[in-house]
């Protein structure tokens, strides 16, 4: 009986951990938003329906973001012509700092400014960076919290498989 109880407890624990680990957004329709971009234009996510979209939430004070962004830019440059779009969402209060960092890093993908933090709330962003992959139908398919060297390979595989769908 004791063994059974402990097994149930263990299962419950594993279940709870798996719920915590997986994002609540995966498999759901990506919440729509519109934000001002670094080029001055307003960009709306739903206007990219039909393309695979990656949203990368970043901030100037986040070290891993600085590492990750040039790698994401490479992916963007490579797959943009086959229906892949990348939207960087900066959550700094002051967009000037973000613009400075974009210039320093020389990235070419559109960067949007979420100074009111409304979009990061919509996407339950609790760590930096957060990378969200959205399929052609507008559904959230993968959510990555944080960045470690090697993640770009994971992104590459996922982008390629979403583009093939």
């Amino acid at each position, binding site marked *: 009986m004791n063994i059974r109880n402990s097994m149930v407890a263990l299962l419950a624990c594993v279940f709870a951990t798996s719920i915590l680990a997986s994002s609540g957004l995966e498999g759901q329709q990506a919440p729509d938003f*519109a934000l001002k971009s670094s080029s001055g234009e*307003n960009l*709306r996510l739903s206007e990219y329906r039909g393309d695979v979209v990656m949203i990368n939430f970043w901030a100037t004070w986040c070290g891993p973001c600085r590492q990750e962004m040039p790698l994401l830019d490479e992916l963007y440059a490579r797959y943009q012509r086959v229906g892949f779009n990348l939207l960087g969402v900066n959550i700094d209060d002051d967009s000037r700092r973000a613009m400075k960092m974009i210039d320093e890093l020389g990235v070419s993908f559109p960067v949007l400014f979420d100074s009111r933090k409304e979009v990061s709330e919509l996407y339950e962003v609790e760590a930096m960076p957060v990378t969200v992959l959205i399929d052609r139908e507008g559904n959230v398919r993968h959510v990555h919290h944080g960045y470690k060297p090697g993640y770009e390979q994971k992104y590459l595989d996922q982008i390629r498989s979403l583009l093939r769908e």
Partner: protein
Amino acid sequence: MTKTLISLAAIAMLLFSISVVAQEDIAPLNADTAMADAMSVQAAKSESRERFRSLDQDVQTLKKEVLDLNRDLFLLEEELLFPANSQVAFFVSMDVGEYFELDSINIKIDGKEVANYLYTARETDALIRGGVHRVHMANLKTGDHELIAVFTGKGPHVRDYRRGATLNFEKGIGAKYLELEITDRVKKQQPEFVIKEWE
């Protein structure tokens, strides 16, 4: 059990007799058989085509049903969330748009911000082409209310432009529709922002 066995035996006998008859026919009627084969292949083809067509029709019907269901759900949700008696809807329209390039609209009701909508180039284009955009929908109590709409964008000579418009309106029983209209005032070469109540 015995009944099933008997019926199985009968079917086997029947099949056997058919095959015997068929074998007898083979030698003298080779051309006829080929013709019959070709006809049966054609019949099978047309049957499969027919089946495919009916399947396609089924899919189309199903799609239509899904769309209808989606529309009904949407309407039902609206009716439940915004009952006609307390419903207030705000629409944005644009006429010409020569002197104003719309960027965003901020709406406050009774001093409280209820909507802040950013327009993309495509959306502005749709407005200029005659589209009307429902920017916000809310529930309001009957009585007097104040609406403040702030329009941001590029004005004449591509300068940053920000203008507000205010309307005091009375919400009675029944739904209320308000239109935020952006027009060009040619005489002054300036945009004009008007809030209208739909009767």
